[in-house]
């Protein structure tokens, strides 16, 4: 009996430690955003203020970075979702002997450090744009989009692949027998079936792009995103304005992530209702 109590106590202790470790640093950092001292300090609270947020809005770099982050995020979604979709469909059809090789190639970006993807993107496109005389395309926004899409497309592909595993080709054959064209099958049967996965892939792509640093810091060239502005500020020196920025970024990503979870679980429940027999 008492050994059971000891177990429970140890489990509780572990929980407190784990979640304390997980949330403690974030809470302390965020608290510093509302405190008056000019060095980020969570305790003692010398006075509540929103001054650091006001400073932030007046900061042109931050506003520009935020704008670019949203722009790149939108581009990455527009590029990675179709690429991942095509990658997944090809995976189901590719020549069986080449499947392992194909898988290795398209999944390798997931296992490659982000800095390396950033570096190779910049080196490659710098020379390619030079040979083709299209130097104007050697642009931070474009390169960041390409660099990030390299691995984000692979995330999207993995999402599509897991949905495609449950795809029933019988529907496709039925439609063909009824006289639908191949393109109609794709647009009217496959795409609607994949809609939840398209939604998931788009959200994951945007969030990953928005918070990416390693690839972006190389590929962004002379431009800036919110994350690179943030990183250079942190390296220059510590001010509560950074904490304020952190609060804003956390608010954006957390809202995104929670909305996504809610929508997804609602969808799962609807799916379960549609197929009661399982």
């Amino acid at each position: 009996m008492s050994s059971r109590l000891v177990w429970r106590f140890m489990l509780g202790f572990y929980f407190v430690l784990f979640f304390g470790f997980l949330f403690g640093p974030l809470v302390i950092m965020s608290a510093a955003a509302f405190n008056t001292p000019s060095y980020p300090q969570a305790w003692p609270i010398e006075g509540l203020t929103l001054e650091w947020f006001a400073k932030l809005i007046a900061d042109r770099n931050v506003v520009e970075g935020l704008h670019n982050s949203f722009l790149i995020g939108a581009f990455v979604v527009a590029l990675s979702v179709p690429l991942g979709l095509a990658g997944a469909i090809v995976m189901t059809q590719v020549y069986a002997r080449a499947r392992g090789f194909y898988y290795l190639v398209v999944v390798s970006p997931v296992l490659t450090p982000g800095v390396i993807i950033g570096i190779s993107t910049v080196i490659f496109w710098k020379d390619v744009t030079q040979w083709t005389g299209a130097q104007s395309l050697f642009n931070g926004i474009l390169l960041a989009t390409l660099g990030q899409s390299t691995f984000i497309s692979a995330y999207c592909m993995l999402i599509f692949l897991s949905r495609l595993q449950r795809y029933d080709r019988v529907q496709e054959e039925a439609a063909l027998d009824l006289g639908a064209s191949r393109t109609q099958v794709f647009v009217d049967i496959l795409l609607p079936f994949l809609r939840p996965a398209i939604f998931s892939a788009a959200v994951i792509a945007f969030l990953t792009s928005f918070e990416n640093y390693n690839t972006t810091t190389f590929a962004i060239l002379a431009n800036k995103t919110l994350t690179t502005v943030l990183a250079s500020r942190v390296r220059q020196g510590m001010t509560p304005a950074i904490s304020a920025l952190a609060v804003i970024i956390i608010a954006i990503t957390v809202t995104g992530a929670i909305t996504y979870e809610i929508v997804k679980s609602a969808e799962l429940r609807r799916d379960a209702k549609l197929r009661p027999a399982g």
Partner: protein
Amino acid sequence: MTNPITIGAIFLGPLAVILFLFLAAGVERRRAGAGVEPGFFQRNGAPVAIFLLVAVGFWALFLIVFPQLYMIDYSFHPRLPQVKRGGPDDVYTLENYRYFLFGSTRDASHWNTTHLHAFWITIFVSVLITIANFAICYPLAYFMAQVAKPRLVLRLMLLLIVPYWINEVLRAFAFRVLMGTGGVINNVLIGAGLIREPVDFLGLDIALYSGLTYAYLLIMMFPLYNAIESLDRHQIEAARDLGAPWWHIHLFVVMPYAKPGIASGATLVFMLCAGALAAPLILGGPKTLWFTPIVYDRFFQAFNWQQGAAYALILLSACMAFVLLVMRLFRVSLSEIAR
């Protein structure tokens, strides 16, 4: 501009491989007899087939294969001013790799101890952090997957997902607020009278190592949870009925079953740690050794892209070696690691 022959090999080589596989598939299909499987264009219809080919071709070639091959070629070139590139001075050389080993492009009498040391520290510490993350995550992953009720699991999951999406720059910054010389921990320790002088956590690398452990904790959690979750609880009960002590159950029932999840989490954590840039830049002291900031400096301080490419490739080889090692040790396939 570099040697036209290598350029040809970089661009046409992969295309030739694809063409060969395409033809091989066609031949094999024909041998199998007509009407077995329709061809690619037939099966998808021309518009969709063209979309698939263009999209996958662009992604696999222009985003993945060409840049990587080009970077390999680039790393074997000397650093030259733009006008001289492609000229007679632009020869193949090992000097960038020699610099990594000896700290000089010519002289091989001294080892480049700083860079070599930083490289080993990076690999060694990343392995330790991977193990630490596994140890920290395992109890919670097991609890959520096998013990907790579904409602509780759902709530815990939501609690985990929120910090999962927080940017690594912010995680590093949070640890700096926590562990700086004027930071929270030092203030608390001084306030409690335990120490008189602030401890230099940043200079001692304590901040960096704990920051890295923190940053990739959840990367380990989710694959681990998914793997343990599908284990049939009867197996655990059977082991218990047969009198296995609790640590036997974990070591010989749960962990072998969760192998793919462990392998997946370990590879990702190792790769992210060894390739981490934000944490060492922000949490590193003046004497901190980590490999990625050195790569970063090749580009932004030395402006030697060729050398940077060579350093990037060294890091990439280390990561590839780790993936292969894990696949060997755990006897799992690549598709089980990348999910």
